[in-house]
């Protein structure tokens, strides 16, 4: 069995060298997810030591189909840091991601801290300041996305980047479950879905996150962004692509990946 810090260093090297690494799972046979989260937290500590700042969290594996595929019965979470946030319509530089995929989401911005365990849906809803549409770029430092649950948890829940939409809405105006979403890549609608695809309701995902991170010493703070999970399956994206999520009540969120001609 391998060492936590050594695994974290391998993943940090994958970012630095822009070169995916083989799966960690064979070296951690029999290890629990707590070891995978310790590998994740060791990388976050390295980023923070280098000046990056934790700005929120993402929940992954929120769809049942993906949980079954991974052989798990719950989601996972990763950290979002300041350097992962990109602006709408501003081309995201080449080399930012290794093997990106995109997912449309409804993001929560917290107005109050949430400290699990024991957080109820009522408390979670009360902690939400506002809601915006978002595009999440998931990415993997593991070669060819050959990930098991241990790999993706260790690899910051396959986080990559996030583009937040520019139309904040109040939670009480919305039925998050039946909000429709159309995901378009380069002008073609590739998938459609609704908020309820996320654990039955995106709020369920926030409750799960608050209660899961609390015992690990991870804090959900005012101003933090929570990405609760994707409304559709994830789609591979390539340089030069324009990705749009049209989300009912939230307008359109647009992300642009810099192409070769833009360099």
């Amino acid at each position, binding site marked *: 069995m391998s060492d936590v810090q050594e695994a974290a260093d391998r993943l940090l090297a994958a970012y630095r060298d822009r070169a995916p690494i083989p799966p960690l799972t064979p070296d951690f046979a029999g290890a629990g997810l707590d070891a995978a989260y310790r590998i994740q937290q060791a990388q976050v500590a390295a980023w923070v030591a280098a000046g990056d700042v934790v700005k929120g969290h993402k929940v992954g594996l929120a769809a049942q189909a993906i949980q079954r595929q991974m052989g798990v019965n719950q989601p996972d979470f990763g950290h979002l840091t300041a350097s992962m946030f990109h602006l709408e319509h501003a081309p995201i530089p080449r080399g930012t991601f290794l093997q990106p995929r995109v997912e449309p989401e409804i993001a929560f911005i917290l107005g109050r801290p949430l400290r699990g365990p024991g957080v109820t849906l009522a408390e979670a809803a009360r902690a939400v300041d506002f809601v915006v549409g978002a595009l999440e770029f998931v990415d993997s430092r593991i070669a060819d996305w050959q990930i098991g649950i241990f790999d993706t948890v260790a690899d910051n829940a396959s986080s990559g980047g996030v583009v937040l939409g520019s139309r904040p809405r109040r939670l009480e105006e919305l039925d998050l*479950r039946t909000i*429709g979403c*159309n995901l378009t890549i380069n002008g073609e609608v590739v998938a*459609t*879905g609704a*908020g*309820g*695809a996320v654990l039955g309701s995106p709020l369920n995902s926030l409750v799960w996150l608050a209660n899961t991170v609390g015992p690990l010493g991870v804090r959900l703070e005012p101003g933090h962004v929570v990405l609760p999970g994707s409304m559709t399956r994830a789609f591979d994206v390539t340089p030069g692509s324009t990705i749009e999520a049209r989300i*009912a009540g939230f307008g359109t969120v647009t992300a642009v990946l810099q192409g070769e001609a833009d360099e």
Partner: protein
Amino acid sequence: MNNSSWTPASVAETLVRAADTAQPRSSFAEEWPDFTEAEAYRAQDLALVIRRARGERVVGIKLGVTSRAKQRQVNVDTPNVAWLTDAMLLPAGEPVPAGELIHPRAEPEIAFRLGRTLRGPGVTAAEALAAVDRVFGAIEIIDSRFSGYAFTMTDVTADNASSGRFVTGPVHLPTDTLDLSLEAVLVGVDGEIVDSATGAAVYGHPAEALAFAANKLGERGHALEAGWIVLTGGMTDAVPMTPGRHVTAEFTHLGSVTVRA
């Protein structure tokens, strides 16, 4: 040139009998390799003649193969159109009559009731939407007369686009305040959300599907009549209606529809 012993009339009789006895058969592809789309629609129309002769009444039409994913599966790039009769109406709350069906599956759909007659060819999506009186949610119970849903596009067109039963939803709205391309549905199976989609999954927009249907039927000299119901096509993959299962389609603005097996 038809080198097969099959004709549109014998296909129609065979498929109506398969439906009546709930006994599936295999694709016609091997026995009738050059079965054309025109012959498939002819078989569909002759099956309707049989149904009318025993008292069934046309209440509308349905579209099939409206999603790109399904179109790729059967290697086509357009939907097909088929007949709905009063015998296919399942009253809200009634169980799916499992014994009368072969292997029923449930699909959430956006449905229209026409306020005006639509006559193709040349109908645009804008004209089609203007002819709609009300929009509502629906669940269609599809049922193929081909074993394992293994069929070609001509097979399924001849088979009345796998029509089975349909249930209409409780909320009927005018179309002018709804963006149907973002009208969403959540599909629940025994209380668990298994899928979701929007109206954009239906040939881009349900009104595009309606225009396609008006134009396709126009080729055969049929108009879509005022008062008809139009099932515009499945929004998600179909859910098998295994015994005891209940399936709910919950729409953004169009209420909820539940069927149980």
